[in-house]
């Protein structure tokens, strides 16, 4: 990625994150019913990000070595493996399937 574009990415995300962390000090106590709803954002978005990673450019589900990688990472996470173990295992499975079976 070109430098200016990368800078735009960093500054855009940084300024929005700054504002979000700062606003709490200026807001009155919102009803907990409102703030509790933000708890739903992280699971929904992370699940959606997994889903989007296994779709092709046309937006349809595209099965490749990422699928077994996700499954293995899910099993390891369920067994309470640390984050890095899940990530490395996912990458290794994908690399192995590519090297041995020449899969996509």
């Amino acid at each position, binding site marked *: 990625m070109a430098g200016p574009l990368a800078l735009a990415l960093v500054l855009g995300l*940084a300024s929005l994150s700054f504002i979000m962390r700062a606003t709490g000090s200026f807001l009155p106590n919102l009803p907990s019913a409102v703030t509790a709803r933000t708890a739903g954002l992280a699971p*929904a978005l*992370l*699940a*959606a990000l997994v889903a989007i990673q296994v779709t092709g450019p046309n937006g349809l589900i595209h099965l490749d070595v990422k699928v077994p990688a996700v499954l293995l990472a899910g099993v390891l996470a369920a067994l309470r493996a640390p984050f890095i173990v899940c990530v490395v295992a996912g990458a290794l499975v994908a690399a192995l399937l590519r090297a041995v079976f020449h899969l996509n």
Partner: protein
Amino acid sequence: MAGMRARRSLREILQAAAPIALAVFVFGASFGVLAVAARLPAWSVVLMSVLVFAGSAQFAALGVINAGGTVLTAIFAGALLNLRFVATGIAVARSLPGGRLLRSLLAQLSIDESYAMSVRAGAPGPPDGRTLLVTGACLYAVWVFGTLIGALFGPVLGDPKRLGLDAAFPAGFVALLWPLLSGRHAVRCAIGGTVAALALAPFTPPGIPLAGAAVVGLWLAR
């Protein structure tokens, strides 16, 4: 006074933070490696950790870029994940010293881990501000240093696709998601988010599926 907890010493806070700091270092290093493999300039990778300081948001933004999404979509995905900091910001605001301006600056040290530690230290009362600041500062240093190490050593590894580094993104998202899935609501939100994203992806430009998932998540979280 009855009910008042003794102030925790700096040493106690740091001891409790040490294992988390190690995990954050490794997370930062893996972010650095993957970001450089996704062809972001190394300086921008480190700058992102310096200025954003939010693992899952940075990881999400990077995942979007790696999957061919635009910069705007990436910012959008990361910012949506950080929306929860508005809620945690309200919770910690009264525990921090100084006026509103100073508190809004100090609140920049909140991430999931430092917030959780401050809640635990303050329980059953409000979050403990000192724990938030000490833990947050410690994790910030470790996060930036980990990213720097990852970004420096990442290019040594070689061709990202041959190493399966593209599959590291969905694997990492699953690893971040799993611990959140305690309780019926979270599971419902995750399933709803998946369905919304997959249903919208074939018909809408990148970014919209994530926005749809966010709306569904807010809707189902009660």
